[in-house]
Each structure stands twice: as structure tokens, then as C-alpha cells.
């Protein structure tokens, strides 16, 4: 059984249709890269999978772990292992990163019928996670994403992912705005978290990231659909030829 199976997914923002019958299947243990032109709907796909109410699903189906994902509340999706690393992480002033992370972690434990952890137990757990993303513990006492640099925000997303250990992680342009070192750290984190029973969807514009996180599949999202899929060599080909080659093969071929 696939971990997630998306069939004919259609979604609107306001009156505008963004996803127009999108199909994508991801099995446990796989890493999928989704690439595509600006505004093609990559973030929309990520947000719809996470259950953002600002996006309206108008058709199709999404089956996650055998369940109808579209009927699940966003927090239930999260508790069942769906994690979205936001393209634009949100600031929550006055709420410490540590408090927020522990609350999120405890919600997951509760959903699994496990005991919640107290702040001391959590601090122990955090040491290893911070090391994984090479983050200073001082970040924990700061307010969630507040005043973080662009790169720090992205790294904070990966820290959250490391804490929550999702079954399906969706990274929406986590590589954008990262310096070379941070890129390596983020990619290392993702690789370390990879297990046979989880999967990752990486949305990116840059082939560069895929040197670090080696995808099993690469998809091109354009015009609200997956127009082309292939192995990791597809990313190189895209870099070479651009998206026109996929979106309007006739003109590209004629040139």
C-alpha cells in the first residue's frame, strides 16, 4: 500500500483553480522531488496536503496510510505524521521555541496514547536534535521564528521535523535562502531522518539540493498537473533545457 496516493486532485484559491487533476503516488522509503515554474502550484499542493483551510479542494482524492486524508483536520494530519516545512515559516511572538516544540511533541505523544514529557525530559531529547541540525540551544529560548533570519527559519523547520519525526515530510523550498553550509546541514538532517517506513516530498527549484538529497523520483508540476516524471537525471535535464521543454514540448522540439 502506498503511503500517500493522490488522484485527480483539484484545488482552488478563491475562484482560481490551481491544481487541475494532479496524480502522485509516494511509497514508504522514497524521496520525491517536485519541481516546476513559479506559480505552478507546488506550494498549493503542499498546503492542501497539510489541510490549510484557505485552499478549497474541489475534486479528486488523497489516501494517506489507507485513510481519506481530505476528511482529516489539519492537526489530526499532523498527529498522524504529516509534516510541512513551510516555504514561509510563521512568527509567533512571545512563545518560546522550546515551549512550542514541546507542546507539538506532546500532542503527537498523546495521539499515540503515550505519556507526555515534562520540560526536563524534553530538554534531554532536544540536545540530540539540536546537534543534528547544528543549532545553538539559545534558539530554543527565542520566540518562534521571531526575528530569525531567513536561513534560521528554514533550519528551525528542520529542527521541528527532527523532533516530530514525521512519516511524510513535505519540504517546501527549504533550500531557498540557505547558504552552502546550511544547505548541507539541512540535507544531512533529512538524510539522517530517512527510514524505510517514512517518505519525503522535496519541493525545490534547484538541482543543487538534489546532489545532497538524492531523490528516487523527480516530477515536474506545471499547469496544475504533474506533466513529467523521471529519475534523478530528470532534474539535470530540466536545468539544461528549462521548463518550456516540458510545458510546451511542441515549440521546444521545433527549436
Amino acid at each position, binding site marked *: 500500500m502506498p503511503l500517500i496516493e493522490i488522484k485527480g486532485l483539484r484545488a482552488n484559491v478563491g475562484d482560481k483553480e490551481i491544481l487541475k487533476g494532479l496524480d502522485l503516488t509516494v511509497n514508504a522509503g522514497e524521496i520525491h522531488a517536485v519541481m516546476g515554474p513559479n506559480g505552478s502550484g507546488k506550494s498549493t499542493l503542499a498546503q492542501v496536503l497539510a489541510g490549510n483551510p484557505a485552499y478549497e479542494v474541489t475534486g479528486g482524492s488523497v489516501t494517506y496510510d489507507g485513510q481519506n486524508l481530505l476528511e482529516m483536520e489539519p492537526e489530526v494530519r499532523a498527529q498522524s505524521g504529516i509534516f510541512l516545512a513551510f516555504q514561509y515559516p510563521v512568527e509567533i511572538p512571545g512563545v518560546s521555541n522550546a515551549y512550542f516544540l514541546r507542546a*507539538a511533541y506532546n500532542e503527537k505523544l498523546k495521539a499515540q496514547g503515550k505519556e507526555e514529557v515534562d520540560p526536563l525530559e524534553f530538554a534531554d531529547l532536544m540536545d540530540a536534535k539540536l546537534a543534528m541540525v547544528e543549532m545553538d540551544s539559545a534558539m530554543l529560548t527565542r520566540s518562534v521564528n521571531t526575528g530569525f533570519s531567513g536561513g534560521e527559519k528554514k533550519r528551525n523547520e528542520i529542527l521541528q521535523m527532527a523532533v516530530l519525526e514525521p512519516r511524510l515530510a513535505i519540504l517546501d523550498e527549504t533550500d531557498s535562502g540557505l547558504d552552502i553550509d546550511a544547505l548541507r546541514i539541512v540535507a544531512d538532517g533529512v538524510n539522517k531522518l530517512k527510514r524505510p517506513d517514512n517518505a519525503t516530498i522535496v519541493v525545490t527549484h534547484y538541482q543543487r539540493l538534489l546532489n545532497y538529497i538524492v531523490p528516487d523520483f523527480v516530477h515536474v508540476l506545471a499547469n496544475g498537473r504533474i506533466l513529467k516524471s523521471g529519475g534523478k537525471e530528470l532534474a539535470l535535464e530540466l536545468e539544461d533545457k528549462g521548463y518550456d521543454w516540458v510545458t510546451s514540448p511542441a515549440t521546444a522540439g521545433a527549436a
Partner: protein
Amino acid sequence: MRDYVEQRMSSSIETLISREYQHGFVTDIESDTFPAGLSEEVVRAISAKKGEPAFMTEWRLKAYRRWLAMKEPHWPNVHYGPIDYQGISYYSAPKTKTPLGSIDDVDPELLKTYAKLGIPLYEQKMLAGVAVDAIFDSVSVGTTMREELSKYGIIFCSFGEAVREHPELVEKYLGSVVPYSDNFFAALNSAVFSDGSFVYVPKGVRCPVELSTYFRINSADTGQFERTLIVADEGAYVSYLEGCTAPKRDTNQLHAAVVELVALKGATIKYSTVQNWYAGDKDGVGGIYNFVTKRGKASENAKISWTQVETGSAITWKYPSVILQGDNSVGEFYSVAVVNNKQQADTGTKMIHIGKNTRSTIVSKGISAGEGNNSYRGRVQVLPKATGARNYTQCDSMLVGNRCGAHTFPYVEVGNNSAIVEHEASTSKIGEDQIFYLKQRGLSAEQAVSMIVSGFCKEVFKELPMEFALEAQALLGITLEGSVG
């Protein structure tokens, strides 16, 4: 897109605003209640009931006559129908053996009431290091830890008892900060106040425990008019907490209290309130009208700090203030005011700088949800002789949904060129992106709102004693529960 989200948000507001008030039960207890109405006879009768000395009766009568000549103020940004002052009963007391020698004499029904409210009057609180005075309708029903406190020379008792046992202190300080002629509601309170708490901390004594009073309105159609007087003698320190609840009733009840704080040379008084009077139902039926005058006077090097978390009442009208009389005195006001449904709050503070190098800090956080209306009204006054006075004001509003309102009315009067007065203000809307972000991490909408709002109020919560901070945070969550989907 925007419309779409707002529509989604407000439809979840509709379905979720339905939180029941938890303290809305009524205690079935026999009480001694005066018939409705107010006159000189009623004022005299209250005074007689309480066995007061002549100076008190006289003071009440002067206040009453003054009140007759005054008009109800209508400048606050709140709206309500006319109050029938003759339709209110001005005295109601549970029938028990009086006077109460100790907490053991308290009617078990009353103890149960307080236990239900989470305020055990027995040892538990002592262990937690809090001494409690419980006020039920018009009278104090018991004060804990008195013997312990008396070892330090600290007096903590009901106002009625203070009048009988320490008349010299009462006569000296009563009305010294809030004169009976101060305003309409203060005058009314001065005439008819039935009980309250009294604290005296002697010179150089640091009160070892938090003192607290829990106010409970039980009877229908009874006004509650209590009066609190706290005197910290030179170099003394005291931290005082006040909590309030009332049953759910579909009529409005009037609560007009007066609190006076006297901080003598070098003394510190920290006064914290968590106000959770019944706020009325979602259509605005019932609830407490909370018209309160709170003021402190700080002598040289003294400090008065007000911290309040206002979550209840249908209408709140309240401006805890500090008269910075002495040189180098400090005044602080930290406030969180939350309104949901049809609640209205007009609250803020007054800092009056009289002495040199006086400093004041104002941090106000207003949260409006549902159709609630929140106004901050603050006055910073620097008198000509207050050389080197400083004030910092920060006034932040947060809106939850689209039907609520936030207003700020800052007034600044500076009569001395050396004064530095700073004012910062902001208004933000709780973001659907913030809520979704937290939900994506597994938190429910309620947890998300409560987390965002707690973060917003952090600067105020950190001023509250630990135990109270947790209670305040929980209350905030309850008040806002269901305000966002």
C-alpha cells in the same frame, strides 16, 4: 481569497463561541438580605449591622449625601441601559454565627462553594503559601493564616473587623487615597460598602506569604460594594492577589468596589487581580457591571505595581492608578483585558507624577474577540515640580475575528520640561496563518489561539505570581475558547 478565509473563520467563530461559564452555580444558603432601595436609613442600617463606630457612620452619610448630588459618568466607551439604584439590595450576608472566630466556624455550604471554585480555605492554601480572605456577597466569611501573620505584626482581616479592632488605622487611612467624593461609584461605595479586606504591614516587614482575597457574588439583585485598604508602612513589602467570580444570572449585577493602597517611604505593594466575574451569555444577557476605583499613593522611594488580568464582567470600567507623591517613587501597570461575545471593557490607568525622578511603566494588552469592545484609556500627568519624571507606555491590541473593536485613548499632560514620556502602540490581528502553522504542528485551534494570545500577553503574565500566572493563562484560554476555528 480574503473573503473566503474570513467567511470560513467567522463561520467557525459562530459554531465555536459557546463556552459555558464554569463558576455559574448558585449556593443555596440562607441569607440576611436588605430589601431593595437606598436612603439615609439604609446607610445607617448597614453601619449599625456592622457595629461601626460613629466616625464610620458619619463618613458613610457624608458620602451618601455627596453621591445624591453626583451624576453617573458616561464618558467611558461602554453602553448599557439605565441602572435602577433603588432596585438593588445593598446588603446581603449569609446567616451564620457571627462573629466568626476562625475558619472552622464557616458554614460548610460556603466552604464547599469555595472548594468548588478551586479556593480551599483550609491547609492546602497554607501549604501553597497563600493566606486567603473570602468575601461572600457582602461579608467576609473567613480569613486564613491570621495567627501566622500576626507573629510578624501583619494585620490581614475583613474590613468590618478592622473597623472594630483597629479603628485608628482605618480612620487614618480610609479615603486618604480615594476620597468619598472622588467619583460617582466611589461615593456610592463609600456610603454602602459592606465589607472587604484590610491589610497592614508594619515598618520594615516583608510579608512572607501572598495575601489573597476571593470575592464571590451569590445573591440575585444584590450589589457588591467592597472596599480594600492596604497599608505598607515604611520599608514594608506585600504582594496581594484578588480573584472574583459570580453565578450566572440573566440580570445584570452591579459591582462597585474601591481599593486604596498606601505605600509609605520605601515600601512596595504589588497588587494582582484576576477578574473573572460572570460576563453574560453570548447575546449579552446578564453579567456583572464592574465599576471599580483602584488607586495607590506612593511616598518617597516607594513602589506600587498593579497587574490585572480582566477576563470577565459584561462591562468593565476600571483604571488602577498611582499617585507618585514622593521623590523617586515608582508606579507600574501591567494589564491584560480580554473581551469576547458582547463584553465591553474601558480600562487603563492614571500615573500622576508629583515627586522628582518618579518613574512609571504602563504595559497594556487588549484582546478583543467576538463582538467584544475593548478600550484602553490612560492618563500620564507630569506636574511642574516632577523634575526628571519618566514614563514608558506600551499599548498593544489584538483582534480575533472581524466584529470586535479596539480603541486607545492616551492622554499625556507634561508640565515639566525635563520629563521623558514615551508611548508605543500597536494593533495586530491574530493571523489565520499563525493558527494554521500551529495546527500543522498538531495543536488544536483552541490551543493555537491560547498559545498566540499568551505569547502576546507574556510581558504581563511574567509579572504575576507563578500560581496566578497559570490560572490567568487558563482563564484566557477559556474566555477565548471558540473564538477562532
